[in-house]
């Protein structure tokens, strides 16, 4: 199963640039940005800008034609998603099955910051009760300041 698709993927190390499709002037940057965000279905570790699979070439042409026809980025993406699914989008859409993906890291950050704040405010209030071996602490600090003096 895997070998057969990989066989269509002609050596991922070799950059094969076919002739770039003709674009209306001023659209090059938009075209480049779009094809870099679309995943090739044949060489699946590449976007369609990098991939040299025949399908990627067809899709680049399709994107170029749609841009020339005045279609918006969203329309072009919808067109491809209708045919290949969300898999083609390297920027996953924000919807229920990706809430965790987009929100997770920031949720974790908030959680981490809250925890950190609680640790420190808790630690300060506990401070008087904390039984520390003062002698050992003194020794340690001494050791550190010795070090500092030496260096």
């Amino acid at each position, binding site marked *: *199963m895997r070998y057969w698709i990989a066989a269509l993927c002609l050596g991922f190390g070799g950059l094969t640039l076919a002739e770039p499709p003709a674009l209306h002037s001023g659209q090059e940057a938009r075209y480049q940005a779009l094809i870099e965000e679309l995943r090739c*279905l*044949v060489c699946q570790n590449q976007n369609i800008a990098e991939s040299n699979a025949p*399908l990627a070439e*067809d899709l680049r042409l*399709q994107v170029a034609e749609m841009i020339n026809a005045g279609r918006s980025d969203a329309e072009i993406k919808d067109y491809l*998603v209708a*045919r290949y*699914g969300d898999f083609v989008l390297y920027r996953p859409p924000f919807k229920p099955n990706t809430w965790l993906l987009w929100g997770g890291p920031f949720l974790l950050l908030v959680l981490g910051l809250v925890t950190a704040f609680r640790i420190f405010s808790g630690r300060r209030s506990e401070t008087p009760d904390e039984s520390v071996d003062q002698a050992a602490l003194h020794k340690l600090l001494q050791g550190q300041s010795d070090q500092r003096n030496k260096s």
Partner: protein
Amino acid sequence: MKARFLIPVGIVAALLVVLAVGLTLNPREVPSPLIGKAAPPFALPRLYQPDQLVTDASLKGRVTLFNVWASWCVACREEHAQIERLAKEFGMYIIGLNYKDETQDALGWLSHFGNPYSAVAVDADGRVGIDWGVYGVPETFVIDSAGVIRYKHIGPVKAADIENRILPLVRELEGGQG
């Protein structure tokens, strides 16, 4: 033992389950969003009569297989005996989509390996292929009598796929219709 020290073990346990399930999946197989939707319309020249057209209308009225193939595709050769079997042994109605091929090569290929197709549509530039979400030939679609795509098989059809997936589905669809 405080509960918060157990959190890491919990996370890893969940991770292990996901990874274990992941080992049984194929990350490369992309399910088609077209399943359950009407077959994309097309109107393409016939391979044998280039001046006539095959259209999506030919997919309606009976359960149909839609097989995407090309003469340059090695895996198509591998599956061809099974497609032949589907046509001859099980009497399936099969439309072929000759994908990004040279007409002469395609004709030679069929005369050499046999022609299981009721009609072959020529998709020279691969546009219809894009509409159908084709990304790796061979691909085979099962279409019900209303012209709705019910199943997509990616890669060469093997005998086991016919017995386990395709035939049961076709029987079911035909049963529902009759």
